[in-house]
């Protein structure tokens, strides 16, 4: 017995959009793709593209919220390079990033490796390390303000146990920025630890066992198996850390307001000051453009370092 299967009538051939790799998408797929992309595109357009274009345009003007404004070309940029507050802010931001990023990444990786072992109260430690990340920066900063209080703070109390003289921490130009760095490192650990932990759990057990069978010790297993395996995650953590540290603001705003003098003034603080306190929006926009360029440069350097590490 034979069964005849009636073939459905072929639909009218549709126009297809050629894809670069030779595959073809039918129009309904193209439409569905754009429809699904639309919310993200709309969001990016309204909250990223328009502000970036606005900042670029404003940076070429002397707009200061008044009735009148004028095109000033690159005057804001040339003024910025003579502005000692901007120079100090840029230097403090770069210094903050150079200290906070590597130290926080190293500590996070070490803690993540520790939390990846079979130890007691693992859940408690994971939660404890993540708590600073989910706590509002203002609350964190307020607690650290008390810790650094020269009169009754915990930091000086701790020093006193060892017979050291009290320090003025945030009120001393020499220790203000390092004090902020400590808070920045501490606060940023949680997120990095979680990411590293996820990456460490994804390292191939087979490879680790093979290395062990080959007689590799702990360090050799880490250096030759674990380290390359978490390479992409390292790069992700590096990029997010660069962007995060360059955008540090709330911590500084609550704890020092950029002082004493301008010892803890960072780029975003300077931009805020110029835009919303001094009302120089054009000038602040030029500063923002420079900050974007500097972040891009740092990310570029990070990418080069990452490539060099992979090629090793």
């Amino acid at each position, binding site marked *: 017995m034979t069964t005849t299967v009636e073939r459905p009538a072929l639909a009218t051939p549709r126009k297809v959009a050629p894809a670069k790799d030779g595959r073809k998408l039918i129009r309904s797929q193209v439409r569905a793709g754009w429809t699904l992309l639309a919310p993200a595109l709309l969001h990016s357009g309204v909250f990223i593209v328009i502000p970036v274009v606005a900042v670029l345009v404003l940076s070429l003007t002397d707009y*200061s*919220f008044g*009735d009148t404004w004028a095109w000033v070309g690159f005057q804001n940029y040339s003024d910025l390079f003579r502005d000692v507050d901007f120079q100090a802010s840029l230097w403090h931001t770069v210094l903050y990033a150079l200290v906070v990023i590597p130290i926080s990444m190293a500590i996070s990786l070490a803690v993540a490796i520790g939390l990846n072992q079979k130890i007691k109260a693992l859940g408690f430690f994971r939660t404890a390390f993540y708590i600073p990340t989910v706590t509002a920066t203002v609350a964190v900063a307020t607690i650290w303000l008390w810790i650094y209080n020269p009169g009754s703070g915990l930091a000086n109390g701790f020093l006193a146990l060892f017979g050291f*003289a*009290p320090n003025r921490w945030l009120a001393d*130009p020499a220790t203000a920025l390092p004090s902020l760095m400590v808070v920045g490192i501490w606060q940023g650990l949680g997120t990095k630890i979680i990411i590293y932990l996820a990456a460490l759990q994804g390292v191939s057990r087979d490879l680790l066992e093979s290395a062990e069978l080959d007689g590799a010790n702990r360090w050799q297993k880490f250096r030759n198996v674990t380290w390359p395996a978490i390479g992409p995650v390292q790069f992700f953590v590096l990029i997010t850390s660069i962007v995060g540290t360059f955008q540090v603001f709330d911590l500084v705003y609550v704890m020092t307001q950029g002082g*004493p*003098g301008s010892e803890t003034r960072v780029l975003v603080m300077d931009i805020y000051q110029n835009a*919303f*306190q001094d009302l120089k929006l054009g000038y602040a926009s030029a500063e923002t453009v420079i900050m974007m360029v500097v972040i891009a440069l740092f990310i570029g350097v990070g990418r080069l370092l990452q490539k060099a590490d992979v090629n090793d």
Partner: protein
Amino acid sequence: MRRIVGLSLMAAALSVVVSSCGNGVIDKSTDGVPPAEATGTLRVLIPSFPTSTKGREAFQKVVDDFHKTYPKMKVEPDFATYKNLNEKMSTSIAAGIPYDVMVTGVGWVQPFASKRIFEDLGKYGVTPDVIKDKSVAALIPAATYDNKLYAYPLVADARAVALRKSAFIEAGLDPNKPPTSLAELKVAAEKLTKRDSHGNITRSGFDLDSATSFRQSFTTFLASTGTPLYVGGEPNFNNKAGLDTLLWIKSMINNVQPYGQTNAAGTSLVLTGEAAMGIVKAAVDCSEDKGIGKKNCDDLKFFRFNSGKEIEYVGGDLASIGSRSRHKEAAWSFIQSLTKPASLDAIAKLNKKIPAYKDAANSPQAKSNPLSKFVADGLVYAVNENEVPSNWLEMRGNFDIQLTQAVLGQKDPAKVLNNLAGQSR
């Protein structure tokens, strides 16, 4: 064709989203409309009322009074602080929905008037000459720009000096002969400073009330030598008087008071006993339950700086109308409600300041405590930054940073003053 239709639909959707976000924010103008029929929202930016229940109740009384004239207008207050005032104003201007009534402080009016953000109150019959009969003289220059009045004074925030009689007697000083000149103050402050065995200051000899910024104290001490900070918008501090004043502040910090000293409540240190002498604000609560108590109050003596000129630093709250407001007439009516004596008394009490009406010395606030009475009587000695340049808002920050750098020895004081003078435009 279909692509064009699709794009058009997307653009239309976007415009609907954007326009709906802004719908209802920008009202139709009510200027020229009879007050009883005017509808819309009057947006008020005001740091003069605390966000506490008492503050809100006092503000509501002003609104209730305003509603007698404009019954259908809604009032939307923004209880800002002086810290975020500029931020609120600038973002509202950038968003195209500026406030209708803006309350600012000394030093704000001229820069905003020059940018044409504030309305000339002369249009409502209030000029510098008219206000002389209604308000404390001390705040009129701060509300005037180009011989026009751009703000109506609400309250005066004055500063005096206080000493602890017991501390003076303990140090062998006569509390009835307070030191008033810079030189005398330093000598007395050094005698009054107490230290522990490590040399750390445990009680400051003099509180400059400058935890992180020396702008106001520099202005005050400089003025006490008879030298105003600015004259006609031109810097008047890059001279011998300015340098002597800055060097004097430098010699006081970490000598009679640690840099950055403050307490959590923000109370003047001489009132809490953390300093033997120092700058105080415009009121002291002598009650036993909430204040410092009668015994402490009786231990205080108030006086004014005098290094050649007796002075009292006076700031204050000043109410203006936004030049881009669509409810200017309603805004003026609101300011009239805000400046009624009962409203000003309430604001003064809530903020521990002095009402800025003519007879401030006989106000309920002045009669309520000895410090308010002292500063109200001293309003005739008022000084402040004087005739500031148009970039004063920028200069405030510059003063804060650079004076600190000079005081902490990071920069040469003379160069700092010259630099600040060069930056004043």
